[in-house]
């Protein structure tokens, strides 16, 4: 990482997805930015990494293989009330989205997403903080 970009107070992003491809992709997308990225493959790992790193934003897949991404979001939120989130979802899962209700704490992005769109979304979330 460019040491010039390294600031004292870095914004931290936690990516929670059971797919290695997506985790690696999101790491690559954000690695040379002002954000620091951490990866977790499941709920348990997400909780462990979050306890240690205290992320500002979590990008979570709604469908994790072992459990529901929404449960992961809710548990993270309990521990870190200021945490923002982007839920990754797919067409056809609108019912899940509806079930979560309207909330300022999270945004949705549909897979397969556009990385530029995702970057813009992340920037906007941090700008509004």
């Amino acid at each position, binding site marked *: 990482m460019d040491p010039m970009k390294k600031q004292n107070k870095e914004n931290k992003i936690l990516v929670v997805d059971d797919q290695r491809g*997506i985790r690696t*992709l*999101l790491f*690559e997308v954000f690695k040379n930015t002002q954000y620091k990225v951490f990866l977790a493959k499941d709920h348990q790992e997400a909780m462990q990494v979050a306890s240690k790193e205290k992320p500002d934003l979590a990008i979570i897949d709604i469908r994790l293989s072992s459990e529901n991404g929404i449960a992961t979001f809710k548990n993270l939120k309990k521990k870190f009330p200021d945490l923002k989130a982007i839920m990754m979802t797919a*067409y*056809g899962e609108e019912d899940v989205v509806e079930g979560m209700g309207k909330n300022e704490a999270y945004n949705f992005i549909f897979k*397969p997403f556009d*990385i530029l769109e995702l970057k813009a979304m992340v920037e906007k979330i941090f700008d509004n903080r």
Partner: protein
Amino acid sequence: MFKGEGIRVKKDNLNKEEDRMFCHKIVLDVQSETGEIEQTNEYYIEGFFHQNQKGVTINFVFIDNLTEINHFKEKFTLAKKQISILSELAVQAVHEIRNPLSSIKGFAQLIQESLDDEDDRKEYINIIVKEIERLNKLVKEVFNLTRVKEIKESCEDIHKIIEDIVPLCNMYSKMSKKQAKIKIIKKFYSDFPLIPVDKEQMKQVFLNLINNAIEAMENKGEIVITTEKAGDCGIIKIEDTGCGIDEKDLSKVFTPFYTTKEEGTGLGLCIVKRIIENHNGSIHVESTKGKGSVFTIRLPVR
């Protein structure tokens, strides 16, 4: 379920699925020449009424014993179960496909960012990304077709639904044909009735039809959306001044995977037809090559 000696059904009573089903028992006595009953045979007629704009049609099976009725019922239940398994499979498949698609698309975009502007390979990546988007669209539409989706009906103002999607269509027109001057004209019948429909599904219908009309036109043209009432039906016509459809192809337009567009999936009209039929309505198309096409939808008011 109607049971008993005679089948009398009022037209108004055919709204609920269970009311449309009937099972009727026929007892047939075989008499000897002297009038003695030699044998008593029991038969059943089981089926359902189907209401469309032409009237009521009856589909039934004639069953000569109860074992067969049960056999028929078992087969029906099994078929229903298989459909729901297939539907669940489709949901899973969509989920499994979108993950690799996301990775492929994302990494392709990352490679693109790392290339110089003059690099020809930027165009290759553009093609990769576009093709992934096409695959995604295909997956979405197959998913829509296979999903057993519950119709959430409520009485809706069809004009309002059309008004809501016209701006989307205008945007689509501007994006896909930058030079095009396409006018969308609404000729709404002021006394058009409220119709029980699933609003979201109906939006999809008009979106597919109007976008198709836009795609059928070169640089300028008109799309006229007319509504009228005929008896118990609301009629919505979508007329364009586009390229029209060859007469030999007219019967194929609602068939899955039939398309004349390079980037089409061939499922749009198939979805439209399915949604309309799920609402007990009908759709048909008339077209003159080089002049344009008219799609006419009929929806029962009830």
